[in-house]
């Protein structure tokens, strides 16, 4: 048996109402909210934060699927593996070039699970032209799966099929910043035949029928189109209940996986889920849940994000965070280009958040030290990971001068379980929400981009749902 061992999701803390988008443009943009990545989040950081709980599965491979990799040329899966403290022997593969990257990675991962568990993470933060119909539609988020074999599988793959079609429906050239889409009605027409053919083949291979399917997930260029395509197959309302979303928005490559997660989270054993992923045709997967589904609980379920979100992002916040216009940096120097040798030297420390511990006196440090400031022993340190450690604020400042996409910047002196301390940037936090003594947790973020280098590191966020929900 091979299939899904576990799932986790990551959604940004921030959401914007579609009414806010409509108000700005003087148009109609639908109901509900969409997730908005903070200025320091991209597809890679969200993938790390979604995959964080999976270290315990000892994955042998990391597959990353996204249409918005931070680099055209440079693997994101390697950064993710380092952030999760996985060994250098871990296979690292990036999938992209369209929404079907999700199913490509999923099926390839299942092909590879004989060699060991595969960590699969899908994540997107797509840029849409202001006022385009896509703008109110597109959210940001990540979904991660652990794929593997054995009794721990909560949903196994029963059948799959592919139906390729050469068409220009939703696309972006290598130099385009914004997603492009052909006329809605053509996009719907273009996908119809592939979806139908793909669904038929999967169902026939699995020797089942549409009526036997508990959850149907169709993920295409837009939510409305996907729902219409599902309906055209002849499903009933109950079968497509997980496709209803008015709070998160379309998550790109993570969109189908997010609906799959919703289906899994409400499924009992022996239920069937049909996932039809549109993109230059359609790829279809039929999954069936096992007895193990009853005991599985995600570390941070979707409800955690729904219950702790900030849904009051303004359009002007959004424009700044997505850097849709150029702002004057003021008379301050820009961020210096990180040194490539320094980045390489410190890769385990910075990506994995690994400091050191003095073997003589037990004092822990971040960043790692060679000489102990307590007992002055030299070179008697062992690695000490801060990941998952409790942390609280010793003192803080709200810096209105520091260069930032979203000032003011909040910095805190953070005391970490085990005895170390660091000066950390605080994110997803309003100035009024920081105070001495509050608990914070680490979150993987992009500090800045300089010289064409995205500099990733850990920041802290106030522990959500504990202190700061007003």
């Amino acid at each position, binding site marked *: 048996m091979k299939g899904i061992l576990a799932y986790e999701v990551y959604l940004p803390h921030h959401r914007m109402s579609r009414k806010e988008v409509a108000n700005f443009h003087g148009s109609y943009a639908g109901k509900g909210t969409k997730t908005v990545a903070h200025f320091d989040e991209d597809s890679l950081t969200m993938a790390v934060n979604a995959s964080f709980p999976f270290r315990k599965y000892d994955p042998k491979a990391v597959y990353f699927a996204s249409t918005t990799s931070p680099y055209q040329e440079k693997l994101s899966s390697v950064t993710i593996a380092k952030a999760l403290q996985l060994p250098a022997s871990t296979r690292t593969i990036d999938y992209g070039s369209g929404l079907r990257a999700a199913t490509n990675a999923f099926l390839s991962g299942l092909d590879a699970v004989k060699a060991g568990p595969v960590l699969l993470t899908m994540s997107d933060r797509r840029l849409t032209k202001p006022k385009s119909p896509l703008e109110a539609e597109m959210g940001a988020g990540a979904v991660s799966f652990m794929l593997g074999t054995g009794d721990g599988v909560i949903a196994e793959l029963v059948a799959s099929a592919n139906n390729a079609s050469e068409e220009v429906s939703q696309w972006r050239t290598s130099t385009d910043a914004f997603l492009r889409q052909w006329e809605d009605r053509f996009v719907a027409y273009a996908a119809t035949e592939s979806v139908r053919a793909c669904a038929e083949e999967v169902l026939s291979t699995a020797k089942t029928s549409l009526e036997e399917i508990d959850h149907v997930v169709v993920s295409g260029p837009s939510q409305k189109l996907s729902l219409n395509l599902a309906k055209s197959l002849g499903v009933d309302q109950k079968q497509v209940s997980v496709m209803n979303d008015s709070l998160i928005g379309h998550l790109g490559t993570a969109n189908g996986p997010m609906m799959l997660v919703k289906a899994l989270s409400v499924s009992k054993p022996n239920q069937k889920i049909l996932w039809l992923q549109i993109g230059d045709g359609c790829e279809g997967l039929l999954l069936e849940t096992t007895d193990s589904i009853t005991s599985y609980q995600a570390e941070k379920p979707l409800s955690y994000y729904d219950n702790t979100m900030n849904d009051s992002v303004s359009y002007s916040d959004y424009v700044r965070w997505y850097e849709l216009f150029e702002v004057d940096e003021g*008379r301050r120097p820009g961020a210096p280009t990180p040194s490539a040798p*320094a980045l390489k030297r410190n890769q385990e420390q910075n990506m994995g958040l690994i400091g050191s511990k003095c073997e003589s006196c037990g004092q822990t*440090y971040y960043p790692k030290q060679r000489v102990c400031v307590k007992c002055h022993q030299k070179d008697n340190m062992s690695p000490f990971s801060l990941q998952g450690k409790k942390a609280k604020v*010793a003192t*803080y*400042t709200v*810096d209105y001068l520091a260069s930032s996409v979203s000032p003011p910047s909040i910095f805190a002196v953070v005391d970490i379980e085990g005895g170390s*301390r660091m000066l950390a940037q605080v994110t997803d936090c309003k100035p009024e929400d920081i105070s001495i003594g509050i608990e914070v947790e680490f979150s993987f973020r992009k500090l800045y981009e300089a010289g064409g280098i995205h500099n990733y590191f850990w920041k802290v966020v106030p522990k959500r749902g504990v202190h700061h929900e007003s």
Partner: protein
Amino acid sequence: MSRKGIHDQVSVVGMGCTKFTEHWDKSADDLMIEAAYEALQDAGIELKDVEAAWIGTMDSGYAGTTLSSALKSDYIPITRVENMCATGSEAFRNASYAVASGAYDVALVVGVEKLKDSGYSGLVMNATPGDGTAPNITAPASFSLLAPAYFHRYGLEAKQGKEVLSRIAWKNHANGALNPKAQYQKEISMETILKSPLVAAPLGVLDCSGVADGAAAAVIVRTEDSKKYRQDPMYVKALSIAAGPGEGMLTQDFDFTSIRENIRAAEEAYKQAGIKNPRKEIDMAEVHDCFTPTELVIYEDLGFSERGEGWKDVQNGRFDLTGDLPVNPDGGLKSFGHPIGASGLRMLYEMYLQFQGKAEKRQLNEPKIGLTHNLGGYPWQCVSFISIVGKELS
């Protein structure tokens, strides 16, 4: 032989200081020439009498040629010194030791900084290449970390704490208003300071030192020779500097209500000068008030106030020009301005004027012992410098 420190071995026989301001029309060379010549003339000597020189600058030039190029000195040894915001003091300290050793009879020290040519509004340092993970916290924000920690520990409400900080700025502006060489020569009301735009909460722009261009200079000789130059030299009784290992940001037993380097530098300086009770024995001080919370913790670190009592001494006027222990009578970094490399020497310049009775409207009543304190770095890791200087031999 036991260590005795610098105690009275060297004296300052000439000093100079430019006005600290935005010198749009002057270069660093212009400022160095102005300060150096004022000091030489004050000592009654010429450039050819100087046997060695030290130039302190953080970023306005590299190597000793920064000064030799400006002064056209005659191949004498010149060393460029950098120790962040304590640069000027560090240049003075090194020159003092060279003279005390007997290697040279007459040394010139010049400190200079030309901040306003950068085009940036605040202090900007060249970053050392690194992995870029160090937070890009600004100088005011790094020192503002002291404020919530101090308020929290001693139970001050945010409003009350803010008033204490503002009163420090108010005092230094009131002093600077009496100083013709200060960058800001006007009193500023408490209300204006309290309401100044936030820079690093809770600090407003008026909690920050002035960003200025300027230079200051001193001529140092051995005390045995000093009367050849003038009858009223300033005697150097202690010089100390403490460089911290940075434990404040590595371990949790530092609570951001003091600066450890200050405490250690003070211990050493008081030992050298034989000072047992700084609160009583020191008549005046120039301290590193880069931001108002820094001055608050300095009072306690240097023993001017009991721990946790500094804020009360601020409120009762102890450190005002008319108080028991005037601090920053010349206006401090706050109102005199802070051209980095020049500031440490500017502090000594005020001591020198006060001892000689030349401080005009801000003249104190016959001070005999003064302290200067100059700090470079961050509250959790810095170099902290202290000098104790006197009007009389002891």
